[in-house]
Every structure is written in C-alpha cells, then in structure tokens.
C-alpha cells in the first residue's frame, strides 16, 4: 500500500482554524491509489481488458477477417491456400483412408487455428466462446457474492437459532464435491424449460450454467462473510453505536455492510477465475453450455475427439483459460494485499 500522503488537490479544504493536515483519504480511494501504483495490478488489469475487448469484437472478426459463420457447419466448404483450393474437411490419409480430418491451422485470416469436426472456424469460435465463458463466469460471480453476502450477514447478525440452521446448511453443501453437485443440478435443470412467473428460461440458455456455477461456491464465501460479520458485530465501535441507540438497520447498513464489502471484493477476482475453470469443466463433461452456444469448455470438448490429429483445437481454449485465470489471480492477489489488513505485504 502507498505510504505517501494522498494528494491534497482533490481533498476537501484543510481545516483553516487548526491549520491541520487534510483528512486522510478514505479507504476506497487509498485502495484505488494502491492499485494504480502496482505494476502487476495495472498490467494484469490491462491484459484482462484486452481479452474482454477481443471477445467483444468476435462478430467483427468472424465477419470481416474469417468471413464465416462460426455457428454453421461447413463440411463441404473449400478455401484458397497458396492459390490452391482445398476442402476444409481433408480426406484422411492414414489407415484405410476413410473419414475426414478437419483442416489444420492455416495461420492465415481464414481458419487461422483450423477447423473443428463440423468444419467451423476454431479461431472465430474461440472468440465467441470467450464471450460466453466470461459472461457466465462474471454473472455467476455476482450471483454467488450476493447470495453469500445475504446468507453470511443474516447468519452472522441474527445469530442464535437462525445462525445454527444456516451454518449447518452451509456445512452440508460444503460436504458435497462441487463438481458432483454442479453435475447433479445441471442434469436436473437441463433439457427442460422453466416458467417462473413471466420469466421464461429455455434449457439451452446461458442462465442455467450461470445459476449452477453461481450457487455451488456460495458456502466458500458465505463462511468467511459470516465470520467477519460476527467479528464486526462484537467490535467496540458497533457496541458503541448500539449504546448510542442507533437502529439495528442503520448499524447494518453503515457499519457492517462496508466492512463486509471488502471481503466480497477480495473474493471477486478469485471466484471469477474459479468460475471460468468450473464452466470449462462442466462444458467438457457436456453438462454446461449447450449447443449451439459455444464456450471455451465446449470447444475443449469438440477438441477431445481431435486431440491426436488436430491438437490445436484443444490447446487454444486451454491456453485462453490459463492466461485469463492467471491474470485474474495476479490482479486478485494485489487486491487482497491492499484491502485485507491482515495480509503481510499490505503492511
């Protein structure tokens, strides 16, 4: 964390009467300054912005560079390489010569990373898939944080029997292997449409994996949130506020929530990283994102059958996942050092 005093320019005017120093910057401002002064945070943040931009520009890439529709199969398509027209699905030369192998990476604008089993452009699908992977991971992170905050705060603040019930419930869900819980939920939820009042959720919608991934990690966040709430509730300044007769709802809003918020923010990047991996794992087991939607996980699944003949189809999304998750973790580490008063480097 920065030790130098905050700039005075943007601060409220100093107390003229006492000639005192300007009040120190608030914790949020200090955190932002800490982030801006950390090279790791700036670089990893920049890398993440680039990845998001690349996936947002997927339609542009598909239309103008690859000139293909990455969601339609192109089994009989042909492309021009070195002035020669070659089919996207090459005749297999191995064994009996039966069957076809999709074209390998051309390293040119079209089929930059080759084609998958259905003759679709892998590079374009990678960008579209990235879009979905990031949307799912992001939305699931939000969902998880909100649920965990509500459960943790209610359990920690209410205490007593409510706490006992909620804590035991959290422990129970914790004892489930995450993947088995997620697989169970998706098998129950996939292949059906849900009608919740006016909301209509089709089974191939991205909402299903978002809900599943968002829910399975709730215990991991709710537990520390509960602990933090209990610690704050018993701290002197909350006792003092209580003694002054401040309403519980106001204590919750003004004192407990801001303190819990840092815990939640510290969790956010790590949770997002975890969610990206979880999404890919579920899609790899074909219980995550459903066709025709793509995600990094579904491309990995497409690539599984081509692993030995066209390994690029598997390698590319894996590398994309690895880079994104690493950047998120790097960013998250800096964030934790800044926001968590207990962490070593923060001191």
């Amino acid at each position: 964390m920065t030790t130098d005093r905050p700039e005075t320019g943007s601060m409220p005017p100093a107390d003229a009467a006492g000639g005192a120093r300007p009040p120190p910057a608030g914790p949020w401002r200090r955190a932002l300054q800490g982030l801006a002064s950390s090279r790791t945070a700036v670089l990893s943040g920049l890398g993440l912005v680039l990845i998001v931009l690349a996936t947002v520009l997927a339609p542009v890439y598909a239309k103008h560079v690859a000139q293909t529709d990455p969601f339609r199969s192109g089994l009989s398509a042909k492309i021009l390489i070195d002035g020669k027209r070659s089919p996207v699905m090459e005749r297999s030369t191995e064994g009996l010569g039966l069957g076809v192998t999709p074209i390998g990476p051309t390293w040119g604008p079209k089929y930059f990373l080759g084609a998958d089993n259905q003759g679709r452009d892998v590079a374009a699908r990678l960008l579209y898939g990235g879009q979905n992977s990031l949307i799912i991971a992001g939305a699931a992170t939000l969902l998880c944080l909100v649920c965990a905050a509500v459960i943790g705060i209610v359990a920690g603040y209410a205490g007593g029997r409510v706490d006992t019930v909620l804590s035991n419930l959290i422990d129970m869900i914790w004892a489930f292997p995450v993947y088995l819980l997620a697989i169970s939920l998706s098998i129950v939820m996939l292949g059906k449409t849900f009608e919740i009042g006016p909301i209509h959720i089709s089974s191939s919608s991205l909402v299903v994996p978002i809900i599943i991934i968002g829910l399975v990690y709730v215990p991991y966040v709710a537990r520390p949130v509960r602990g933090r709430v209990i610690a704050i509730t018993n701290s002197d300044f909350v006792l003092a506020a209580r003694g002054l007769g401040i309403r519980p709802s106001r204590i919750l809003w003004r004192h407990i929530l801001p303190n819990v918020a840092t815990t939640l923010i510290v969790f956010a990047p790590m949770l997002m990283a975890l969610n990206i991996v979880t999404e890919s794992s579920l899609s790899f087991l074909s219980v995550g994102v459903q066709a025709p939607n793509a995600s990094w996980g579904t491309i990995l699944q497409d690539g599984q059958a081509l692993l030995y003949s066209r390994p690029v189809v598997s390698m590319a999304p894996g590398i994309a996942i690895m880079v994104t998750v690493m950047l998120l973790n790097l960013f998250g580490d800096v964030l934790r050092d800044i926001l968590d008063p207990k962490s070593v480097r923060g001191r």
Partner: protein
Amino acid sequence: MLAVILSRLARMVVVMVGISVITFLIFFATPGADPAARIAGRNAAPETVTAVRHDFGLDRPIWVQYGVMMRKMFVTGDLTSFVNRGQKIVPTLTAAAPVTLSLVAGAAVLWMALGAATGIIAAAFKDRLPDKILMGVSMMAVAMPVFWVGEMVNLVTQSRLHDTWAFSWVPPLGYVPLSESPARWFLALVFPWITLSFLYIGLYGRMLRTGIIETYQEDYIRTARAKGLTARRVLLKHATRAAIIPVVIMFGMDFGVLVGGAAVLTEVVFGLNGVGRLTYQALKVLDLPMIMAAVLYASFFVVLANAVVDLLCILIDPRLRRK
C-alpha cells in the same frame, strides 16, 4: 474427551443424513423432475410411465421411497440399478473405490511432499529468484483446468512422443489392479498422479509460503531467533510447524472430496473407472439408486476426512490440546 468424540460422531451422522435427504430431494422432488418419465424413456406412452411408476415404487409417498432406499442400501444391501436392471449397486461401488483410492492417495503423497517443499523453499528465498520461479509455476498450475493438463499429457505421452525413448514405457490408458501387478499398477498411474497433483502443488505451495511469511512476524519466532537457533531450525521447526496447520485442514477437505468422486475429470481423461466416473455416468443416465449411493459414499469420506483433520491438528499444534 469422550464427550467430544461422541458429539463429533453425532454431528457426522446428522450431516450425512442431511446430505442424503438433499440429494434425494434434488432428484425425486424437484418440480418437473419425474423419475418415472426418465426411466420410461423419451417418448413413452402415459400407460408405460404409470406402469414404470408403480413398478419402481415411485407412486408411494416420498418419505416411504426414501426409507425403502436407505434400507436396501444399508440393511439388506440388495439395492439394484434403475437403468441396468440386475446390476447391484453396492458391489459396483466397492469395485470402483480402489481405483479412485489409488489415484488420489498417490497424488496426495506427491502433492503434499512437493507442495510443502515449494512453500518452504519459496518462503526461505522470499522475493529472490527461486521464490519467483516457484510462485510463477504455481500460478500456472492453479490456472490450468485439470482435464486440459491431462489431455496435454496424453498428447505428449500417448501420441506425439510415445515412440521415443522418453515415453515408450507409458502403458495405454486404463487401470491395472495392484493385486494383479504392482509394477504395472504404478506405471499406469504415474501420469494421472502427476496431472492430479499439479494443481494442488501450486495451491498448497502458495498457501504455505504465505503462512510461513506471516508466522515470521510472530513474537515466538523473534524469541527463537534471539536464543540463537539457526535460521534453518527456526524455519522448519517453528515457522513451518505453525504455518502447516491450515494446509493440513485444506488437505483433509481436498482428500475427502477427491476420494468421494471429485477426481472425475482426471478419471475421465485417463480412462480410469473410478467412483467419480461411475457417479458421472450414473448422473448422465439418471440412475437414481447409484447416484444416492455414490453421493452418500462421497459424503462419508468428506465427513470422515474432516474428523481426522481435527485430530491431526491437535497432534501438530500443542496449543489446541489444552481446550
């Protein structure tokens, strides 16, 4: 002490019953999830569904169904699959358990040894080159999906470099029972072990490093240094001993969950017919009795591992003994 153990056991049973009820409700009572319709097939006639419902006892009240299933699983032991009729659940599960146990136990030895080494070395060389290299590799290990690592390992050892001197000894994918041939059991599991442990080496190494560095700020470390102990003794006997407790707690949870079936991705990629894969396949065809049995089996290991971890922590940290 006895009271503590008894209450611990009681809690274990409560958690397991709770888990079995939750699983049961997920599959039998979720609105719209009609097990009979699933068993009967996609386009079954309504009469068939009704017949199936009666046949499998799914028309009885839900708590009766639950009770019958539990009795068949634990008392009579003749619970049979809904999908492959005649397949007994309990023997199938006990046949798959050694595969998963071999995989996870071997990987656990590897990741505890290497994870501890990583954490201690990185902490000892804090902010210097060995620390930076180890933490960089750990960061990568944590960022890669385990099934992808497995695929890349297969790509190298089974396909691209299989016919070279380096990897020609790698047997084809699959499991060889320990009782059949210990040597082939070992060879078949080498790469699954490495793949599964890689993530945890990174995770535990990072965690232990942070722990040791934090412990270095404690007063008793200063005391230990002041009384003239060597740096190595302070690091290993004082700092690491305290910092390894959260790692042990984490290890218990991870080990329990993995033995319980969370190693499913590694098992799928390496073609090992373990509990995770069994559960996954049961889930895909919605073989409810198999799912219930597998989940209960899994939760048993998780709860058991947690209890063992509590004991281990008391052994490691003398401060916990006095309570």
